[in-house]
């Protein structure tokens, strides 16, 4: 039991740090780092649930693979947007992207 709780607490703290980063940073790439931390934390949770609650359910491991895919794709698309923003406006600071507002 304490193993599961420990893993969940670690994941919760990492999630909190990731949320703080994603909200407080002004830079697109740094925001992505925060999001990756949050996804990593959710993956810890998934693996802990697999190992300590349902070791026979391999759809959980499949879920982790999908989460990893999402992480990589988020990276690729995020970098592509950063490239484009850098090319058109010369910076990736998100405070200067006010023209994206609706």
């Amino acid at each position, binding site marked *: 039991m304490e193993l599961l709780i420990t893993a969940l607490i670690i994941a919760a703290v990492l999630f909190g740090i990731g949320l703080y980063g994603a909200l407080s940073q002004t830079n697109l790439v740094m925001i992505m780092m925060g999001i990756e931390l949050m996804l990593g934390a959710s993956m810890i949770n998934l693996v802990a649930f697999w190992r300590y609650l349902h070791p026979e359910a391999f759809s959980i491991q499949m879920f982790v*693979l999908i989460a*990893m*895919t999402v992480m*990589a*794709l988020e990276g690729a698309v995020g*970098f592509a947007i950063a*490239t484009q923003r850098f090319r058109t406006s010369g910076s990736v600071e998100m405070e200067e992207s006010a023209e994206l507002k609706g």
Partner: protein
Amino acid sequence: MAPLTQYLLLLGMGITTAGLVWMLYLIKQSLGQTLDEPGKDIPAESGNLAPKPAWLRYHVHYYGYALLFLAFDMEMAYMYPWAVVYREVGILALLDMGVFLMILFLGLIYTWTQLGLKRQ
């Protein structure tokens, strides 16, 4: 061996390596100090003294490949478990992975047509 023992052994090897390297540093340090001479600590730059720190903005010419790689890389996560059961499942596995790899290959071809596969 139980899996956890194996991982402990791996961890132990890592720590041992770090310890040995640290000992090497300590021995080196005890052998003598570096003389402080002007111009000695400036990185090599073809005979000139490097004027500024090198931590500047650079253009990395392969970012097209990097973007493609980030997405393409994920295919391996599915391929390893697939390869382990390949013989057991048979023709169905071949067709499955064939479809999957064809889909990814389309992405490679698309990048190729968009001139992503060259020095940017």
